[in-house]
C-alpha cells in the first residue's frame, strides 16, 4: 500500500499553474483525475477559510474518503494544495514552506 499525494499550485485566478502526482501508489489516470476534482472542490472551502485565519497553512481543511487536503495560502493568494493520505502535518508544513520559498525565487527570476 503506497501513499498517495497530489500537489497542485493554483494561481489567484483559480487557474492551476502546476500539478504533480506524487506518492508511491500505482498511478491511474482515473485516480489522477479524481485527485484533481477533489482539489478543485476544496478551493471553495479554502477560499472562505483563508480569510478567517492569519495562518498560511490550512491543515487538513477538506477531505474526501481517505484523502485529505492541506492548503498553504501565500500572501499573493496563490494556493499550494496537497492531497494526501498520510497525516504527517509537520512534514507537510515544511514541504509547503520549502515550495513557497522556491516559488518566490522563481517569481523573482521571472521579474528579473
Amino acid at each position: 500500500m503506497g501513499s498517495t499525494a497530489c500537489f497542485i499550485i493554483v494561481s489567484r485566478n483559480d487557474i492551476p499553474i502546476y500539478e504533480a502526482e506524487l506518492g508511491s501508489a500505482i498511478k491511474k489516470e482515473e485516480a489522477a483525475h479524481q485527485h484533481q476534482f477533489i482539489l478543485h472542490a476544496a478551493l471553495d472551502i479554502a477560499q472562505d477559510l483563508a480569510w478567517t485565519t492569519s495562518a498560511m497553512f490550512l491543515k487538513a481543511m477538506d477531505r474526501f474518503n481517505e484523502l485529505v487536503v492541506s492548503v498553504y495560502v501565500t500572501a499573493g493568494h496563490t494556493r499550494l494544495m496537497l492531497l494526501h493520505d498520510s497525516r504527517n502535518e509537520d512534514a507537510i508544513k515544511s514541504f509547503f514552506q520549502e515550495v513557497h520559498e522556491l516559488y518566490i525565487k522563481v517569481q523573482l527570476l521571472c521579474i528579473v
Partner: protein
Amino acid sequence: MEPDVSMETGSMIRIAVIPVGGAIPHRRLREYVSMLARHTRIDLSSISSFYSEHQKSPFTHQPWESSSLRFKYMVGGAPPSPWEDFQAHRKILAVIGLCHCPASPDLHRVIEQFASVSKGYASALAKRLFAFSPSDEQLKDGGEKANSIILFPPTDQQAHELQVLTMIQDLAATLLMEFEKWVLNAESVGTILKTPLDSQSNLGSEEVIKAKKRRLARAQKTIGDYCLLAGSPVDANAHFVTAIELARLTGDVFWHAGALEGSVCALLVDRMDERDSLLEEETKYRYYTVIQLYKRSYLQDNAQRVSTVTFELEAQLKLARYLCRRHLAKEVVELLMNASDGAKSLIDASDRLISYVEIARLFGSLGYHRKAAFFSRQVAQLYLKQDNISAAISAMQVLSVTSKAYHVQSRGTNQKQHAAPDELASGNTDFGKIHPQSIISLFESQWSTLQMVVLREILMSSVRAGDPLAAWSAAARLLRSFYPLITPAGQSALASSLANSADRLPSGTRCADPVLPFIRLHSFRMHPSQMEIIKRNSAKTDWWSGSAPSGPFIYTPFSKGGTADSNKQDLTWIVGEPVQVLVELANPCAFDLMVESIYLSVHSGNFDAFPVSVNLPPNTSRVILLSGIPTKVGPVTIPGCIVHCFGVTTEHLFRDVDNLLLGAAQGLVLSDPFRCCGSVKLKNAHFPSISVVPPLPLLVSYVVGGDGATILYEGEICDIRIRLTNAGTVPIVQAHMSLSGKNQHSVVSIPCDTLNSALPLKPGAEVSLTVTIKAWKLSLTDSDHDPGKNTSGNSRGVSKEGSNPLLVIHYAGPISQIDELHPSEPTVPPGRRLVVPLHISVIQGLRFVKARLLSMEIPARVSEILPKPATLNDINTEDNTVHSRMDSLVKIDPYRGSWELRLLELELSNPTDVVFDVNVFVQLDTSVNNNNITVVDHDTAEFGCPKTRIDHDCSARVLIPLEHFKLPILDSSLFAKDSPASDGFGSKSSSFKERNTKAELAASISNLVSKIKVRWQSGRNSSGELNIKDAVQAALQASVMDILLPDPLTFGFRLINNGSRTENIVNLDPVNLKSNTSDGSPDSHRDVIKVRSRSLISAHEMTDIEVLIRNNTRELIRMSLSLTCRDVAGDNCIEGHNATVLWAGILSGISLEIPPLDEVTHPFSLYFLVPGEYSLLAAAIIDDANDVLRSRARTGSPEDPIFCRGSPFRINVTGTA
C-alpha cells in the same frame, strides 16, 4: 435514506398519489398533480366544516386558529419503509387515485383497480379516487358510486381548483379524525412498536422483558409523532418529553434519539415564525445529541443486516440544512464532510446516491459551487454504474448541472450568451476597452483536465441516454475548447461521434455550441474605389473638393480630426448593392473539415447573406469572402457567422474568438488556433457601425482595351478610352472630374466637357471618354541604369506600380430623394467617387545619352559652279526656300563655306527591342525683338532634319546646327551681364538691371533650347517626344554667348569677274536686310559670302576680288584691315621670298570706317602663279574700341588692340603651273 429531508419532515403527512385506469397523458397528469401539489398546507381553520368531533380529542392543545396539516404528495406511491413504526411520517397515511376519464371509460373497473392498488398501502388511513373530465354518461354512472369515486366535472380552471381544494380539505379532516382515533386507541390499548433494529431471531426472555419496558416510551414517542402530524406541537412536545425520559431510563438509545428529533421538530413547528439565536442554539444542541445518540445506537452485531447510519446521516443533513447559511459555513461544511464520510459506509448504493445528492444541494445552497459540482459528479458516477437508460439520462442531467462550475456549460443554457442583438453589438464596439482583468476573468478557473473529463462524461452519458443533441453539443465543446490536448486519433474520434450524433438528428437542427472552424473577422471590404461614398451637404456645391487627400500623403494633419479613431470607422452600405466581408477560418484539428455552408449571421433582419461551402484541410486556415445584400435601410449588426458543419447549424460569434485570441495572447489559453495553423497574427478587426442607405447611382468604368496596363515608351503619347456606365438604379445628375495620384502632369487632357454634356446619366446609360496621356520619363529609381542588366530583355526599366495617375470622378444622384425615415424633410444623399487608375506601364524607350557642342570651321569654297539657287530674294518660292534651308542646315554646302559652324550633337541610344525613327525639329517661330526689328516668320515655323533610324541596342548621333540662333546685332544691352560685378559699382540700380537682363538672357536661352525638339516614331502606332531640355541646356550653357551673339565684324570675299558684280550681293538696303535678318545672322553672312564665280579661277590670270566687311554693332567702327592668302600648307604666299601669289591693290593696313550696321567693300586683285588651293583671310584691328567690342572680345585692359579675324575663304585655282 430519503431525499429532501429536513427537521420539519416529521410533521408532514405522506399521501401516495397513484394514477389509475387508462394511461393518463403526461401533460394531463402533470396538470392534475400540480393541482394537488398546490395544497401542501391545509389550515385547521379551513377544515372545521368537514371535521366532527366524535370523541374527546386527544390533541388538547391543538391551536385551531393558527395550526395546519402538512401534506407531502408521493407521486407514484412509495414502498413501505421498515422504519414506519419508528417515525410515523414515514408511513403512507393516505392514498389518492388519479383517473383521467377519457382514458378509462369504465369507472367500475377503475374503482376496482384503485381498491386493489391501495390495498398495498396498509398504513393508509384515508383513500380517495379523483376522476377528472368525466363524460356525461360517466357523471351519471359515477353519481351512483359517490362514496368510492369523486368526479370532477369539466369546468373552468378556477372552479376546478376550488373543487380540488374542497376535496383535499375533506381528506385533511378525515385524516385528523383518524389520527385522533389512532391516538386514543394507542393510549388505551398500546401497540407493539418495532424497528428492524430489534432482533427477531433470538427473542430471548430477557429481550421480551426489555421490550415490554421500552414499550411505553415507544408508544409515547409515536403518539408524539401523530400529534405532530395533526398540527399540535405542544401536545407532541409533551409526549416526546415523556418518551425521552422513559427511553433514557430504559436505555433505548435509538428511540431516545427519535423522540429528541421529534421534540426539535415540535419546537420548530411551534415557533415557526420566530427564529432567534436562542432557538437556534437549542436546536443545534439537541441535534448534536440526536447525532450522538444515533451513532451510539449503531450495533456492531446487526450492522450487516441493518444500519442506523442512515439516520445519523439524515440527522447530519437535517442539521446542515437548518444551519445552511454563509456565516455558519464552517459548521455546515464539517457536518457535510462527516456526512460524506458516513455515506461511504452505506451499504445501499441508492442511499449513497441520495446522500451525495443532498450534500451537493447543501453545498450549492451554501454557495460552494465547486464542492456541489464535485458531489454532483459523484452522483453522476453512481448513476452511470447503473446500467439503464433512465440512470444515464439522470447522469447526463446531473453532469450538465455541474458543467457551470467547471466552466464548460453549453451556450444554450447560459443566459449571458443569449443577449439581445443590440447588446451584442455594444459588446462588439466596446470590445477594445475590455480591461485586462476582465479578460482574465473570462478564463478563470480553467482546469482543463477536469473540464475534459466532465465533457467526456457528459458525452458518454448522453450517448448512453440516447440524446444525440446533448452528445453533439458535448463533443463540440470538447473539440473546440480542448483540441490542443487531444491526440489526432482522439480528434477524429470526436469528429465521428459528432457525425454519428448528427445522423440521428433531424436535418436543420440548431445547436448553441459551435464546433469548428474557428472564425474571426478578417476585414471589411471597404468600398472599392469604384464605389466609394462621399458625404455631401447641400450647402457646399463643390462637395468633392477636400473629400480625399489630393496629395501623395495618406495622412494629413488637417484630416486628423475627422478620422481620429480609425477603429470606429463607419461603414455605409447601400440597399441592393452586394457587400463583402472577409473572415478567416481555421481548422487546427487533424482531420479534413467540410463546412457545408457558412454565411454571415445578421440579427437586424435587413441583410440577405449568401452561403458558401468551404473545405479546410487539417491544420490550415483560410480567408474567405462572405457576401450579402442589404435589403432595407437601417443599421446592420453582424455578430458572427452561421455555420452548418457536422450536420448541425451553429452560430459562431466573432467575439468569442476574439476573446480566445486575447486569452491566448496573455497565455491564459492553451493555443491560438490561427497561429497554430500558420496564419499570421492579425490585428483585431473591429466592427464599425454599419448603416444601410437608400440606393445611389453607381458608375462603372471600363477601359477600352482591357484593364491591363498600356505599355508605353517614355515620352510616348497615346489616348486611353474609358467607357463609363451607370450601373445603379438612380440617375447621375452631377459629375466632376479631376486627377490624382502620381505623374499627373503626364495626363495631357481630360474630357470634362464630354462627361458633363452626357448628364444626366440615366441608369444603364453609357458615356465614352478619351484621355490623352504622354508617358512620363522614368526616374532614376524607376529604371535600372546598370548597363549589364539593361541588356537582358525583361529587367529593363519599367515604371513601378502605383505611379499611375488616377482619374477621379465624383458624381451624385438627384438631391430631391426623400429619406424613408424622415419623409418630411428632403435629405442630401451622399455622393460617390469613382477612381479610374490610368494603367500605364512606362518602359524605357529611346535613351538620351549625352549632348555636346561641336564647332568646326570649314573654309568656304570659291568655284565656277553656282550653288543651288538658295537666294534669299526668291521669297516667292517658299517651298523651295524652305527646302534649301533645311538642306543647308544639315549638309555643309561646300560652296557656301562655313565659319565657326556650331552643331549640337545628341547621342541617343536605343536599349529596346524595337526600331526608333528619330526626327529632330527646330522650331523657328521665334520673335527676335531687337532694335524694333521684330520678325516672325510663320511660314518656316518648323523644319526638321531627315529621319535617323536607330536599331535596337544601337546608338546614334543626331546633329543639330545652331546657326539659326545668332542674333543679328551685337548690342550693348547683351553685355550687361558682362559688366563686371567686381567693378565696385554694385549699386542697386545696376544690380536690378543686371538681374533683369540676366532674366532676359536666361529666357532667350531656354527659348533656344525649347526650339529643339526630338521626336521619335516606332512602329506604326507609337510616337513621342524625347525630353532633352535639361541636357541641351547643360551642353549649351558654356558657350551660349558664342552661339547667340554675332561677331562685331563679319568678313566675306567675292570675285568680281570682268568687272561685273554678282547680282545678289546688293542686299544692304533695309528691306533686304530685314528679310535677311529674319533667318538669323548666319543668313546675312551667307549673303555676304556667297561668292559667285562664273568659272574656275585659273592660274596666271588676274582675279578681281572684293572683301566685304560688315559692322554688326550700333557704333561706327574704325579699323585697320589686312588681307592674306595662304596656301594649303598654311604658308603666307603673298609675302616673303617664296611668294606664289602676286597682288594688286592694298592688302594690309587698310584704314576703314564702317558706319553702324553697314557694309563696306574693298577691292583688290590676285594673280596666282601656281594652281592649287588657297585660303583668303581677312583680319582687322579695331581702333578706339568701345566697351561692347571689348567685352565681346573678352579683353580686360583698354590698351589691348581688338583683333577681328574672318573665316578662311577657300579658292581653288586651276590651270598648269
